């Protein structure tokens, strides 16, 4: 279970402290959880709280009982994170090496590690691109590889921060279908309302607050009304 207990995020700036997320309490148990809202509303901050990339200034974030503040390493081993821009996530020169890097902690035998990496790449549809330069991959393939790198660590939860925003329609659908096919719990930050409607529960974030929390259709309608009401 994902639990936020009055968790807030505040950062310092020359103009004084800025609140990126007001105190928020949530209990997330659904399999597919969507987060939607305008740019700069606090969606990514909320997502980054879930694997300890951002720590709460006050309150607590618990992932299956583990506190992100005190047990960050344990949390990050359980919560994989897919970034908007896959280039930021790919740290090795070829797909095979990138996925192999993810497996270094869990698989000690070198040969087995490479075999497992190939299996992960095959599972995500990149078997024939295993040994090309990551520069040679398309945007969709890079995002799939970023997802493969995360899945190789066998996380319990996958948090994806606008993973389809930079992709064309075909690649966006490909990545979305892979994400929605995961057995892991998925937390998806997205501007794609069709994707949001596929979630079991959707949070609408605006002005650093969760302003709606409920079923996907109602949440999307709320967000559309919010956007239309904003001058």
């Amino acid at each position, binding site marked *: 279970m994902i639990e936020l207990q009055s968790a807030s995020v505040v950062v310092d700036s020359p103009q004084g402290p800025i609140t990126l997320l007001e105190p928020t309490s949530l209990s997330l148990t659904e399999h597919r959880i969507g987060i939607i809202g305008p740019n700069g509303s606090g969606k990514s901050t909320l997502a980054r709280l879930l694997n300890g*990339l951002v720590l709460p200034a006050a309150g607590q974030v618990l992932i299956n009982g583990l506190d992100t503040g005190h047990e960050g390493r344990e949390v990050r081993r359980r919560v994989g994170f897919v970034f908007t821009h896959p280039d930021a996530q790919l740290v090795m*020169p070829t797909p095979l090496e990138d996925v192999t*890097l*993810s497996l270094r902690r869990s698989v000690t035998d070198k040969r087995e590690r490479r075999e497992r990496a190939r299996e992960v790449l095959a599972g995500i549809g990149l078997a024939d691109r295993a*040994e090309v330069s990551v520069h040679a991959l398309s945007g969709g393939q890079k995002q799939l590889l970023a997802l493969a790198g995360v899945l190789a660590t066998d996380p319990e939860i996958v948090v994806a921060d606008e993973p389809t925003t930079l992709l064309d329609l075909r690649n966006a659908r490909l990545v979305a279908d892979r994400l929605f096919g995961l057995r892991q719990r998925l937390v998806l930050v997205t501007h794609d309302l069709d994707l949001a409607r596929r979630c079991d529960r959707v949070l609408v974030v605006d002005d650093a607050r969760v302003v709606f929390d409920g079923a996907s259709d109602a949440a999307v309608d709320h967000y559309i009304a919010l956007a239309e009401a904003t001058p």
Partner: protein
Amino acid sequence: MSELLGVYRPGTTFLHRIGPGPKLAFLALWSIAVVILRGPTASPAFLVIAIAIAAWSGLHLRRSLRTMRGFLLMLALVAAFQTWQRGPEVAIAVVSSLLALFLVGLAFTATTAADDLLSTVERLVAPLRFVGIRPERIALAFALVLRALPAVLDVARETRAAARARGLDRSPRALLVPFVIRVVAHAYATGDALAARGLDD
């Protein structure tokens, strides 16, 4: 050039079969020899050997030269400056040495899988565990450098294109400031990426 640097090319050549340890040792000795023994005769000889090693490693020299255009242009400028300042013999020595180092470096990255390199460096620095240093961290940092070099070159290329798009390609400030900021941002992003996979400790 960024596509070329740091990319492992699977193969079955002798260089592929040698472990990363001996190759690292050779690379270190090679670099020392090229720098210490540089001269108008020795340096071109080193370059010829480097070309042979690069070809032996399976690198496509023609393709490599094509993607090295930026680097070759820089070498041409270095050669012109050295010829003007210190004469053609020094220019030949400097340019040959730089190319010899670069080509052998390429041959090393082209024939060494990052995972093998990580394991070797981890093993080499394992004794430092007793003084509180974590070998896996050193090894990861070492391997990340290979990836960081092409990424930094990409940032430089994009920054230059952005400055040119605004007609500021002759302004050092318009090139340097965003370049430094973006490189630092890249370092943070890499840290986040490793953390996202649970590899931050």
